[in-house]
């Protein structure tokens, strides 16, 4: 919605893409760009709160962080980093395509970016469901190391969590699939492509899940703990691993939320690009969404070492 407002209104009595209150396309573009940058710094300060919380607890209780960190799967984190970086590349390339008016390429690059985002979420869901199964949750719900967790209901819990997290993607895939099968004829080519992309996103999410599971299984050894070890179980009133996972979940959760928002905006942008709306004289929205997407990438670039590596 912010995006929508940073891209200027097409004014009825304005000419082309320049809104009535701007003198030139250049002024409009610069204004939009400055606006976008200002929005990005609000995002940075929004995340800064979480980083400060992280720093405060890390400085005051390093031991907690070192133990708790063992329970994050570095390979999954690294994998996601690569996926996200690649999506940044496609996004940056998309901006170029828009500037040069390469309409087909632009649409394809946006689609590619969307698919990467989907894979990222798929892999993330495996991380989350693993934590859920182990009871490695935020302080209020932290149950790790308490005896009543038996191996099989652990794996059951993991399965359930995976299912719950995957449900929306599955739903999207099924619905859009159904639409393609039954109403194919009635849809305009643009809408058809959009639905197809939705189907693709839904499907590839589970590719991400698959990859996640494989990696999880392969690298299980690296997660160095035997069930019921009390080295990091929560004591009321004392800063325990619960706080670490509180920070882990808020940080990654807020980040994932930004990914979702980004995906939504990109679909909106894809629709426009399929209508060939972007070209050398009007590519502001693509550029601005690109900036946003790179910022989400930037945040992850810091989250990855802070959460997965240091300790």
């Amino acid at each position, binding site marked *: 919605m912010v995006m929508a407002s940073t891209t200027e209104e097409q004014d009825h009595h304005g000419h082309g893409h320049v809104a*009535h*209150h701007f003198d030139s396309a250049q002024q409009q573009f610069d*204004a939009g760009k400055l606006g976008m940058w200002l929005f990005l710094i*609000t995002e940075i*300060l929004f995340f800064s709160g979480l980083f400060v919380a992280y720093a*405060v607890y890390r400085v005051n209780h390093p031991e907690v962080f070192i133990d708790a960190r063992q329970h994050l799967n570095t390979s999954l984190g690294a994998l996601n980093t690569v996926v996200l970086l690649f999506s940044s590349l496609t996004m940056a390339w998309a901006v170029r395509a828009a500037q040069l008016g390469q309409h087909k390429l632009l649409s394809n690059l946006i689609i590619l970016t969307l698919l990467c985002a989907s894979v990222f979420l798929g892999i993330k869901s495996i991380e989350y469901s693993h934590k859920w199964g182990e009871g490695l949750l*935020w302080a209020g719900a932290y149950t790790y190391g308490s005896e009543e967790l038996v191996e099989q209901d652990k794996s059951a819990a993991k399965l359930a969590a995976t299912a719950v997290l995957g449900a929306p993607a599955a739903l999207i895939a099924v619905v859009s699939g159904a639409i393609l099968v039954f109403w194919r004829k009635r849809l305009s080519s643009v809408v058809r492509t959009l639905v197809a992309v939705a189907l693709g996103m839904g499907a590839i999410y589970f590719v991400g899940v698959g990859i996640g599971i494989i990696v999880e299984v392969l690298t299980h050894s690296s997660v160095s703990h035997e069930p019921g070890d009390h080295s990091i179980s929560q004591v009321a009133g004392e800063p325990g691993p*619960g*706080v670490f996972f509180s920070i882990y979940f808020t940080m990654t959760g807020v980040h994932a939320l930004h990914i979702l928002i980004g995906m939504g905006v990109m679909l909106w942008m894809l629709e426009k690009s399929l209508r060939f709306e972007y070209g050398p004289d009007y590519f502001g929205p693509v550029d601005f969404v690109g900036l946003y997407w790179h910022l989400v990438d930037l945040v992850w670039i810091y989250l990855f070492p802070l959460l997965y590596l240091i300790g």
Partner: protein
Amino acid sequence: MIVDINSEKILRDDGVNYLNCDRGWKSWAFTLDHKRIGIMYLAGILLCFLLGGIMALLIRAELFTPGKLYLTEDKYNEFFTLHGAIMTFLFLIPSIPAAIGNFVLPIMVGAKDVAFPRMNLASFYLWVAGAIFFLLALGLGGLDTGWTFYTPYSTTTNSTVIAATMGVFILGFSSIFTGLNFIVTINKMRPAGMTWFRMPLLLWSLYATSIIQVLATPVLGITMILLTAEKMLGVGIFDPELGGDPVLYQHFFWFYSHPAVYIMILPAMGVISELMSVFSRKPIFGYRFIAYSSIAIALLGFLVWGHHMFLSADSPLAAVIFSALTFSVSIPSGIKVFNWLATMYKGSIRLDTPMCYALSFILLFGIGGLTGLFLGALATDVHLHDTYFVVAHFHYVMMGGTLIAFLAALHYWWPKMFGKMYSEKWAKVACLLIFIGFNWTFFPQFLLGSQGMPRRYARYEAEFEGLHRVSTTGAMVLGVGLGLSACVLGHSLWRGKRAPRNPWGAATLEWQTGSPPPHHNFIGKPVLTDPYDYDDLVFDEEEGGFVRRRRRSGSEQEKPIKEPSIV
């Protein structure tokens, strides 16, 4: 210079302006016109001010006696909480920037609109949404945490904290959108001739305000998210039970909420800078210093939040550093005051209502600022912290400062907004009543505080009764004063006589266009002039207001011309 007869005709004959250019509620609800959005904001914040004001009076009434008069302790706590929350988030923060600024800023920079009109409208509707959440908090059993939502109380109390925090979160976005819009508008939409140092000072102060809004508000956002998560899921980041740290919450909260104090006061200072110059008929004294001091206050304002925690954390070092930084902010504020006074020197001072408010601003803000020294100094703060001294101090700054300046701005731009003049006489009476009532209410509270009366007390020791009674009586006078000024302005809307383009003889661009302005603000292009040069402005009987005289070399007699004219 050629006088553009046509544009003049248009403006003389058909009275088409932004108010009557199109009708129907849709033309307001979906308008992208910054002027209409400004007016909607104005209506909204005035309603909230009324609500918060009524609560204030109820609180004062209860405090007339030490024991219970008519409010239970719980109700009292809910009232002062919502009084604080509503006044801060729904009135003070949007007051001058979102309502007055929205209307004036684009016209002052000679633009057709703000850079992002849709975002502007979105900002207003977000504000409405936030207000609704607050009303929910009020309706669903009330909120009793104090407007600061300190943990762990806010996470343990079973009142409607979540509704309120969500409201604050949404209002944050509303505020960010306004600030972002203003920065871009000022940066990118000024006409070529208007360099940074030819901008009216109100624009400087609004720019500084916007910087704070954009940089600080997001932190409030994440704080509210964490607080909500804390309450709903038990993410123990602020909760000592789960190993969290309640003082960390205070840091998060004040990292926004102290700069927010400058979001409230900086625009007020901008308004005063304009008025002092216009009504002294003198160029503002020390333009650059006032401009720089605005930016300085905005930046230094980020370094002082710790003075709300002198007694919270155990680190004297931090307290000392924060105290030093706190004092550093007082300097630029002082600079502004002295420059305003210097502006009056050798002027020709006209005491119209806006000027009366401006002068009472200087006195009240002066007291408010000076009493800040007691609180910035560590040793005295230990005694005065969380007492009525603090209450009096911030009411002198926020109400004596921001509210009075808001009223000044309202009376100053009222003719421009609605094209009507109000009754000078009664407006001045109201101004006087407000000034007296205000001091009568809040000055005794300084004494209450230094004598050791803690704040947020529903019941109090008998020894404080005398001063509390004085204060309560004053509050009633203050209420009457505010009511009167509301009547005066309201009355002008249908009884007031038609306002000229430039009733005050001000030189900033908004006075070159009609009152009220046309839909696109100007017909033709405004003439860029020095915003503080009054030499060519002469009173014109036929117009009933001031008009610009054409500059002529030599003795040839001067003939007044009507703006706007195309260069």
